């Protein structure tokens, strides 16, 4: 049995191709049922995210199943083979195992280390289980993939640092305040970046959000979206002392928040820390503010610097993660080989044994006057011959078969063992 992975990802196809070939991930029932009916395919899982569409399956004949999958993908999405083939990749054997482990560990992601893909893979697996399209091999394979991902996550720092500006800001806020759920955020102005940042902070449990803008309308719109409160621009400084996090992104040509204003606010709030993020160009917040105790001011370049640094850290950690994947891949491949050997030995024994029994029956029915004890002797004789003959091939399978699949295939061909029976 072979594991085969095929499909396309952000590395091989642009967004418009990925869109055309994607499956609706909330309802994979139809494609799963169709794919499991492909003649050479045994088990299948469909993983469809915005960055990749992949089919993970098991089959005996890899080449045949790859052809069938290509045709399935084209037919299902009403495209031609020529359109999709250049974007598709297929992996088999160890490469397939490695690929799935890398995907699960987020080593193959657009942003290496992003945590979403593992959840998506789990969902894909759940759909497949619900549709009963997985069997013993894929079940074990996917559980292994999840545990490899967990191992990568805990043993390397691959996911420990933020690689987007918004995440970096949220992470910083948490390194200052720990808990964000009782903190107040003030958003001054309403640029696109500021909106994105606010969205991230609000999703991290921040409950109290204040928005102020020179044009009240825009502030109202944002306040509605994030269920925040609107603050009039001229009320801003009266409320400054209660804000823990201040994000500024107005297009004002001069400084809005001056050193004196923050120094005063700091006295009022008894030195409780303030975290300011200035993403406006030109800057809205006096850079000297960072010299005040318990005040932390970051501008867009500072955040960019963090992201850059984190990205390098991740690349370094990714190397270590590849090592883990390689190790686990070998271990799983070894297991897969063993799965192969045992059934082959059993079929081989059964086949020879059935031949022996048939022949003995034939002989006994012709041979009249044969005594019970003679029958037993003949039985023992044939049994011994069969065992002696089988001894070497079975040994050969046990020792060589675990390392590569070539002898298994050969033995199957020589003895004409049918594969479909033992699945």
């Amino acid at each position: 049995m072979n594991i085969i992975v095929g499909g396309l990802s952000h590395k091989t196809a642009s967004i418009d191709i990925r869109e055309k070939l994607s499956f609706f991930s909330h309802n994979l029932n139809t494609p799963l049922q169709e794919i499991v009916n492909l003649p050479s395919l045994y088990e299948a899982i469909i993983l469809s995210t915005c960055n990749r569409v992949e089919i993970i399956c098991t089959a005996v004949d890899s080449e045949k199943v790859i052809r069938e999958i290509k045709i399935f993908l084209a037919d299902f999405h009403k495209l031609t083979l020529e359109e999709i083939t250049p974007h598709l990749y297929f992996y088999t054997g160890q490469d397939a195992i490695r690929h799935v482990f890398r995907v699960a560990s987020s080593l193959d992601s657009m942003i290496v280390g992003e945590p979403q893909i593992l959840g998506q893979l789990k969902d894909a697996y759940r759909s497949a289980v619900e549709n009963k399209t997985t069997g013993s091999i894929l079940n074990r394979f996917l559980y292994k993939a999840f545990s490899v991902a967990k191992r990568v996550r805990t043993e390397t720092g691959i996911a420990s640092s933020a690689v987007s500006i918004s995440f970096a800001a949220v992470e910083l806020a948490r390194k200052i305040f720990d808990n964000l759920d009782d903190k107040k955020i003030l958003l001054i102005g309403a640029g696109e970046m500021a909106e994105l940042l606010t969205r991230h902070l609000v999703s991290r449990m921040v409950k109290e959000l204040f928005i102020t803008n020179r044009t009240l309308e825009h502030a109202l719109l944002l306040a509605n979206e994030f269920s925040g409160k609107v603050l009039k621009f001229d009320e801003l400084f009266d409320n400054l002392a209660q804000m823990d996090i201040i994000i500024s992104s107005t297009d004002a040509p001069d400084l809005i928040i001056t050193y004196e204003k923050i120094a005063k606010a700091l006295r009022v709030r008894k030195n409780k820390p303030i975290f300011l993020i200035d993403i406006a160009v030109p800057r809205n917040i006096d850079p000297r503010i960072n010299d005040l105790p318990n005040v932390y001011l970051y501008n867009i370049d500072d955040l960019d610097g963090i992201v850059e640094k984190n990205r390098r850290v991740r690349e370094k950690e990714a190397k270590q993660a590849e090592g883990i994947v390689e190790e686990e891949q070998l271990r799983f491949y070894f297991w897969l080989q063993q799965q192969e050997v045992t059934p082959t030995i059993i079929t081989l024994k059964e086949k020879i044994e059935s031949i022996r029994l048939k022949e003995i029956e034939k002989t006994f029915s012709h041979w009249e006057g044969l005594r019970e004890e003679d029958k037993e002797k003949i039985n023992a004789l044939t049994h011994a011959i069969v065992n002696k003959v089988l001894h070497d091939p079975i040994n050969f399978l046990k020792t060589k078969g675990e390392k590569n699949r070539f002898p298994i295939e050969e033995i199957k061909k020589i003895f004409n063992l049918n594969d479909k029976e033992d699945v």
Partner: protein
Amino acid sequence: MQITVPLYFKQIELYIFYLTLVIYCIGTINFLIYLIKPRPLISFLSFYITVIGFVFHSIIFLFRYFTNACFPVTDLHQSLFFFAWCIIGVFIIFNIKHKIPVLGSFVTPLATVFFISSATLFTQNPVQIPPPLRSIWLPIHTTLAFLGEAFFGFAFCGGIMYLIQENQIKNKKWSQFLHRLPSLQTLDDLNYLCLSFGFLFLTLGIITGSIWAEFAWGSYWSWDPKETWSLVAWLIYAALLHGRLTIGWRGRRAAFFLIIGFAVVLFTFLGVNLLLPGLHSYDSFTSP
């Protein structure tokens, strides 16, 4: 209370002492590795190795408690030994409650240093204080004082961690330490907690000490160097606590204060004994 034991027990005590020393060193090294490689398994190992060390440490302490003529804190070896025990004890309780294993990377080296200093002064024939001083106040006073100092030792570590973390965030020098150390808020809360407990125990230690002094020497306060320096430490911590509650002395400034405060505490503990002769100097017990 004193139990007489066969002589070979002393030999066993010596072995367990060095075993504890080795375990603490391994625990400390593990905790330092955890700082470089923050894997859950390493923190788990480091913590439990430290706990095992603490169990042996406690066994020796109990042994001494029952075989000594008085509460075993009467010389520098025993005091350092007991101080290390208090620090590790506070750390273990703290880590079980708050789960901040990275504290161990700072606290266990501190305790291990004290334990090693204690080992260099190892003696099994401790100074015996004269019977008039042997009273219930000996264990009460010393335990309170050492607990207070252990909390200040903790706050000292918290202060150092705060300064490292604050420096990274303030100056935008992000290293991997940033992820390993707790947030500023957590550290500041920790420092405040340790300050409060330390202050409480130190105050009680000073009060019980002066009651004991009244019984033993006939005066509550005699401006002995140890008393004077404890008062200095007490004033520093009192000032910090007051500043924090009234005008919000927190963060960096508080961290500096905690580091200076602990330096004074250490001087009170060690410097006074070694440099300034007085009532508390252990060899002067015989002639107070």
